[in-house]
């Protein structure tokens, strides 16, 4: 079946099906939260920007969270050796992200707000690392059961 949505979906049919479930679940939760916000707005004031930001966050966090805990990201990690190798790749990727982002920002913007920037980048890197770690662990456990 042709759909522009297939651009965002993986080629593997199981992963594709799971991603479609996550998108659908997230859309339903988003709809319910929007209805909740309309009711909330009837009694209390909520700014449009806040409502939009909350909606976007609900949609993205739900899909990301479901993807991370589903264990479908690292489909080929079945041995302890492969697990450790992938863990190293994740660590290098996250450290690379941190160093490149800090370097680019300092080059372009100077060092006025460096502490704030370092804390922000560090937080993002830590969250990314732990999300990848959980995803890897879940994938590894799932794959081991399927051997």
């Amino acid at each position, binding site marked *: 079946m042709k759909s522009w949505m297939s651009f965002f979906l993986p080629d*593997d*049919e*199981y*992963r594709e099906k799971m991603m479609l479930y996550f998108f659908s679940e997230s859309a339903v939760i988003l709809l319910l939260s929007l209805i909740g916000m309309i009711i909330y707005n009837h009694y209390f004031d909520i700014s449009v920007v806040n409502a939009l930001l909350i909606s976007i966050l609900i949609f993205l966090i739900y899909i990301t969270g479901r993807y991370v805990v589903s264990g*479908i990201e690292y*489909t080929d990690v079945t041995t302890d050796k492969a697990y450790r190798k992938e863990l190293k790749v994740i660590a290098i990727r996250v450290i690379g992200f941190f160093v490149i982002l800090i370097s680019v920002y300092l080059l372009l913007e100077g060092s006025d707000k460096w502490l704030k920037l370092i804390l922000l980048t560090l937080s993002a890197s830590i969250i990314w690392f732990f999300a990848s770690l959980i995803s890897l662990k879940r994938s590894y456990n799932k*794959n081991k059961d*399927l051997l």
Partner: protein
Amino acid sequence: MKNNVKIARIKASLKQEQLASRTGVTRQTIGLIEKGNYNPSLQLCVAIAKALNKTLDDLFWEVE
């Protein structure tokens, strides 16, 4: 869904990884199908049957 994919794969001396690459899916998907935890599409059933030189009946038809 119960099936004979694992038995047929072992008889064909193929690893999950090899069957996965021949059918264009991931190793995890092959594992899930073998365990009966995922029902593949007809297209994938045919691809698996062709890769293992079996018919759909041999792999997916339950006989009492």
